[in-house]
Structure formats: C-alpha cells, structure tokens
C-alpha cells in the first residue's frame, strides 16, 4: 500500500493552487496548439520549456505534462474538423473522424474523441501507477529485432486498410516508404536521395509535409471541386442534449476503448515506437474486431475511439522509459527529458528513490490534467462547431493559410512549403483516379522506424534473417504478424474457391 500513500501525497502536490492553475492553463494551451495543423505536442512542449524556469521543477513538469495531454486531445480536433492530422499520432483519427464530420456528426466525433482520450488516459495512468518499475524492464528488452517485428505487426494490422485496387494500394505504401528514406542513411552516414541537390532534402521528407499536403491542400481542392466554389455550409450542429446523447451512445464502444487503451499503453512504453504505431494498430485491431468492418472509413465511431484511446494511453506510456531509464519514447518526451536535466533532476533508474515528490506529483497531476482536458475539450466543442459553420469560401482560404504556415513552422524552411504544395496537387489528381493516400502517410511514419531496425538487426546477426524468429519476443510478434498477413489472404482464397465451387457444381 506504499504506492497508495505516495499517490495521496502526490495528489496533495497536484492540487496546490499554483499547480492546479498550471494544469488548467497547460491543458488549454495544449488543446489549441494540438488543434493547429503542423503544431503538435512536441512544439508545444519545446516552445514553452523556457517559461518553466520561473516556477519550481515539480510545477514545471506538471505544466509541461498538461500541455502534452492537452495537445494529444487537441490533435483529434483538426483531424475531425478539417481532415488534416495535426500530428502523426492523429492520422488514424482522420479515417473515420472526417467522414463523420462530413455527415454532420462532427460533434459526436469530437465527443467520442474526448471521451476515448479520457478513458485511454485514465487506464494508462492506473497502469503507470501500479506497474511503473517492472514495466521499465520490458522497454530494455526491446532491441532492433523486436522493434522491427513490431513495425511488421503494425503494417500487418493495417493490411485491412487496403482499398479495392490492390496495385494502387501497394503503390501508395511503396512510395511512402521510399519518401521516408530520403535524407540521411543513418547506417552508412551517407546522404541519400537528395533530389536536385536541394539542401532542403537533407532533413528528409517530414511526415507533416506529406500529411498537410494530401489532407489539407488536396482535401480542399477536392471539396472545391464538389462544391463548384459555392459557399457550402456544414450541417454540423451541437446542443447540450446531443452531447449527452453522444456520450450515452458511446457505451457500445466501451470494449474498443479498453482495447485501444491497453494496446496504446504497451506500445507507448517501448522506446522508439511511441504513440503513432500504437494508434494505427488500435485502429487496425478495432476494424478486425468489428462486426461490420465495411463501415470503417465511412464514419464508424469506433474508428475514432480506438486510435484516440490508444494515442493518449501511449503518451502516458512513453513517460515511463523517460522517467525510469532516461530514454525518451517519443520526441516530446525527449524535450521533457531535457527539461528535467535543466531543472537539476536526474532522470534514470534512481528517480523514484531520489525524487519521490517529483514523480508522484507528476503522476497525480496526470490524473488531474486528464480530467480537466476532458472538461475543457467538451466545453470548447460548440466553439469548434461554430468554426465549421463558416461559409466554405471563408473557411477554405483560412485553411490554406494555416496549411502554408503549418508547413513552414516545424523546419522553418520554405522548401517544405513548396513540397507540400506539390504533394497536395499531385495527391488530389491521384485521388481522383482512386489511388488511396492513407497508406502512403502511414508508410512515411513507420518507414524511418522499420528500416534502421531491420539493418541494425542484420548487422548484429551478420546477415542472418533468422534473428527475427530466434529471439522469444521478436519471434512471437513476428508470428502474430504473419498470421495477420495470411488471414485476409486465406479469406480471399476461400471465397474464390467457394465461388469456383458454385459456378462449377460438379
């Protein structure tokens, strides 16, 4: 019960007036930063880090954690309302969130996202409280072969995303992976695929450039074609009653939420993986669990719930290796780690012993931040819906401006803005010909994780690919992945065979 009393002490720290003020402020700031296309929790935390030198370290980390949480909630907002994922963690949320918004159910999607985030956050914090130390060992057991196996699994859970046109889907995955390899080959240290010797390609093709191009500019061009440049008002409405109803309807998604939370948390703990693969896998699993997988991608609420529960759970999960091992599980935790060093705290195996008030104050404030993030998020839903109700001829130019600035800000390089424009226009033309674009966006996120892991493993084993199957953890994950790859194929084969049997009764 020692944990419990430590947690109570933590709560006493978390509800001090200063800390509580910071939690509320942090969640609000995070919500807005997360809702901007191009800005995610990394930016929020990095930008506000210097501000925290004016308060004690515990308050500072509480503030930054609140921003982190707020931004994770906020990421869903632009995914649902504009169809532009604000950060890679929110890509999967667009798949069903955007169709729901187009059907005039934006408020339901936003409520579902907020509720799922809350559940994901809560489950993960409880897991964090109970099993912080033993799970730190799991993170250590993950070397390159395990990371690669996990990436294969992430692709496998996504095989169901394939559209009707298999060559075009494959093309999309391949081009995303090729783009993800632009920049530097970290194994040989050589520059790679520097098109036209432009120095902008040295930093690679940022996921955001592709996502904002395709989902921002491409989507807008598509909508303009449909509306013929007309004013086109959204049918979105929101009332208190509707919010309550949507919350009630979510009971049927409870199973999905819990699944997403656990999956997200465990993937989040693993260094290098983080929230993005977690949310993608949760989406894939939710789809394969569903009774009506066909409705996914067309506005199924479970398609919003699963990734949102997972990405919030993962963001808590990724704090675990940061605190206990001093290893960041995501870019955002890397910045948090930098902050801890500046405040004079030593993250690492001894942090629970040397700074208990800090750790438990942080954990308790996560509970508080999670609650406030839910309340503030729901409170702002009418305002977000209000924005959606603007005439499209006003909304469109504002979104274009946001896309341009959002494409510029992460790297502060106009090169990326031009690239984004090209992706937007080409993506729009390809989309008209039924090329699915989501696989390319996923591939560009997972590629940089998968390729180095594959090659590091093979260097270690001197080119012996059996290394992925010989080690217990990676072997298990690989087997699951292979089953998931083969399952849809066997279904197709069986269907074809049955059809053949029907046409040939003899």
């Amino acid at each position, binding site marked *: 019960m020692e944990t419990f009393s430590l947690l109570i002490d933590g709560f006493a720290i978390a509800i001090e007036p200063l800390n509580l003020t910071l939690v509320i402020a942090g969640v609000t700031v995070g919500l807005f930063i997360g809702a901007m296309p191009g800005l995610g929790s990394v930016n929020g935390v990095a930008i506000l880090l210097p501000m925290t030198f004016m308060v004690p370290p515990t308050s500072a980390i509480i503030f930054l954690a609140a921003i982190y949480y707020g931004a994770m909630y906020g990421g869903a907002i632009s995914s649902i309302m504009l169809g532009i994922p604000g950060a890679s963690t929110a890509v999967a949320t667009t798949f069903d969130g955007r169709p729901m918004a187009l059907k005039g159910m934006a408020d339901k999607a936003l409520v579902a996202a907020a509720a799922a985030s809350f559940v994901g956050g809560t489950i993960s914090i409880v897991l964090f409280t109970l099993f912080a130390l033993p799970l730190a060992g799991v993170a250590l057991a993950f070397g390159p072969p395990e990371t690669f196996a996990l990436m294969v699994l992430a692709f496998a859970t996504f095989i169901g995303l394939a559209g009707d046109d298999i060559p075009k889907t494959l093309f999309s995955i391949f081009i995303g992976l090729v783009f993800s390899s632009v920049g530097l080959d970290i194994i040989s240290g050589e520059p790679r695929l520097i098109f036209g010797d432009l120095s902008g390609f*040295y930093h690679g093709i940022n996921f955001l450039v592709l996502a904002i191009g395709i989902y921002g500019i491409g989507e807008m061009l598509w909508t303009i074609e449909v509306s013929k440049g007309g004013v086109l008002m959204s049918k979105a409405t929101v009332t208190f009653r509707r919010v309550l109803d949507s919350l009630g309807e979510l009971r049927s998604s409870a199973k999905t939420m819990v699944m997403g939370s656990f999956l997200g948390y465990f993937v989040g703990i693993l260094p290098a993986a983080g929230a993005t693969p977690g949310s993608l896998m949760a989406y894939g699993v939710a789809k394969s669990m569903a009774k009506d997988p066909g409705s996914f991608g067309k506005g199924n609420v479970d398609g919003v719930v699963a990734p949102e529960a997972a990405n919030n759970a993962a963001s808590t999960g990724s704090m675990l290796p940061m605190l206990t091992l001093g290893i960041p599980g995501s870019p955002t935790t890397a910045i948090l780690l930098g902050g801890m060093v500046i405040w004079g705290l030593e993250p690492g195996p001894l942090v629970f012993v040397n700074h208990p008030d800090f750790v438990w104050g942080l954990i308790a404030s996560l509970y508080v931040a999670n609650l406030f993030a839910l309340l503030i998020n729901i409170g702002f839903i009418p305002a977000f819906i209000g924005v959606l109700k603007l005439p499209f001829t006003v909304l469109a130019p504002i979104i274009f401006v946001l896309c341009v600035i959002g494409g510029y800000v992460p790297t502060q390089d106009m090169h990326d803005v031009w690239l984004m424009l090209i992706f937007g226009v080409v993506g729009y033309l390809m989309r008209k010909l039924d090329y699915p674009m989501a696989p390319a966006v996923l591939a560009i996120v997972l590629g940089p994780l998968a390729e180095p892991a594959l090659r590091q493993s093979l260097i270690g084993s001197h080119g012996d690919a059996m290394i992925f199957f010989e080690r217990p953890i990676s072997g298990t994950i690989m087997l699951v992945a292979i089953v998931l790859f083969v399952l849809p194929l066997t279904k197709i084969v069986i269907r074809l065979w049955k059809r053949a049997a029907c046409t040939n009764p003899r």
Partner: protein
Amino acid sequence: MKGRISFILGLSAAVGLGLAVSVPSQAMAQGWQPQKPVEFVIMAGKGGGADRLARFIQGIIEKHDLSPKPFVPVNKGGGSGAEALRYLKDHAGDPHVIMATLNSYYTTPLRNPGLGVDIAKFTPIARMAEDTFQLWVSSDTDINSVEDYIKSVKTAGAANWKMGGTGKGQEDSLVTAMLEKKFGIKVTYIPYKGGGTVAKELIGKHINSTVNNPSEQAGFWEAGKSRPLASFTPKGKLKGRFGAIPTFEELGYGSDMVYYMQRSVIAPEGIDKDAQAFYVGVFEKVYKSAEWQGYLSKKGLIPGWLTGQALTDYFIAERAAHSVLLKASETIK
C-alpha cells in the same frame, strides 16, 4: 511573485487571449544588439545530446535575461549537419543567426566536399566545453579492466562482439576505430540514431560495449547497471566522480588515446565586429553562470573557454586531426 505573474500573463498570450507584457530587458549601454529574435541553429535533431545542451544554454540566457531579444532554437540536423552548414553559408553577413556545433562540424564538410563549406571562414564565438568519451560495458559482465576487455573481445571474435555507436563516420565510429587499431581487435559496429539509444541498448544487452559520453551513461552508472573501463582523456583533465575513471594514458596505453567532442558556438562569416562582441559577451556570461559550471561538473564535461582567433586555430587543427582519423577508418580517401 513577479515571475509568476509574467509567467501566467505569458500563458494568456500563448492562447491568444492577450498580450505578453514582458518587462523590456535593460539594454546594454552601447554596441550592437539584435533587433529581432536570434536563430540559434542546432546541427543535430531534436532530443539528442547537442540539442539538449543548446536548449539548456537557451534556458540560461532566458533565465538571466542576457539578451534583449530571445534566442530561438532551430534544429537543422539533416545530413549529419550538412543542412545547417549550408544554411550558415547562405546567411553570410547575417548577424541574427548563430549555430551550436559538435564534431560533425569537421567531419561533415570533410566527407561532403560538394557542400563547398570552409569552416575556417565562419565567425568564431565561443567554445563552451569539451565532452569526452569512455569505454563502457554492462555491469553484469566480469570485465573490470581494459585488459579483461581486450581478452574478452579476442575470445569472442569480431562476429560475436557488438559495439554500438552513432552513425558511421561520426565520433563513436572514429573512437571505435582508434580502439581497434591500438589493440589489434575487431568488433561488429552497429550504428544507432543517437547516444541515448546506444546507452540503453547496452543496458538491455543488445550490444556488448559502447563508447558513450559520460552524460549518456551517468544515470545507469549511478544505478550500478554499467561500468566504465577507461576515459579517452589526458591525465587529470576530468574532475569529480568521472575523474576517478582511469585514462588510457594512466593505464599505460600511450598518450594518443585521446578524443574530444567540442561544444562550441559560431556565427556566419562576415558579421560585424560589434555583433561578434555581443555574442561573445552573452556566451561568456552563460559560461560563467553557476548553472553552466554545475552542469559541466555533474555531467563530466571539461570546461574550456576559448574565443576569437584562438578558437578558429583550434577548429583548423581539429579539422586536420579528423581528416587523419577519417582516412585511417577508411571513411574518406
């Protein structure tokens, strides 16, 4: 209390609800001053050692109000810093851009002559510290000395001894090449994205040894999970608990087993003398601050203030030394 108020006001600006009413910093009496936010380019990606250090410096500048306009960190880590170098070259004469460097400052232009970057032309500002390297193994092994280490590597054979480090041609691989040459051993070198990952891989026993910076292993060492065997420093340079680690020189392996990672700040070529003086002044204050000195001693960095022509001379000498190292490790011809 005042800090808290301006902090909360700052927040409201962040949400776009109001304006930050920050107290204008007392301007320095004369000379050049930045007229807009200063771009503090970092030659490496977010979250790595160089990035953390630069953001730490930015924090000190902010905390002590050392500049009338903020320093804004911008990561340009692409191509092992090639992108940052090209950026600085293109901003010749721009006094609002400075850059935090590490050893890729020498190796990247040497490996990519096509960049057309000559580091001797950049304006030197300050060397803030020198970081060093140690040979690390997991504390679960019974390797307690360099001698044990060499024996173990030879028994295991190159194929079964995995050395983790950063990308090929970068610092870790150069230090590994030094080891291999000195002791006539061969290891399998596995490149990872950053020193932090390398440290963790050692603790997870995915690799057998590393040549981490002291700061990267400090936490694990303290927790008794890793063990340093020897430092790549001259005698007596390292102080504190890291000073207790024997150096290769002390162990009798000669004085050539020395390798530093410099942590310096530079500006583009052709900036005003006054602007250069301003930045030197700012970084001198940072260097002398209690926070910086405390960080150096805690993280096992070697203090080493250097500025002006002396710094340029140092860069040129180091570049020549790296050219030799790169040729020895067959990374360049």
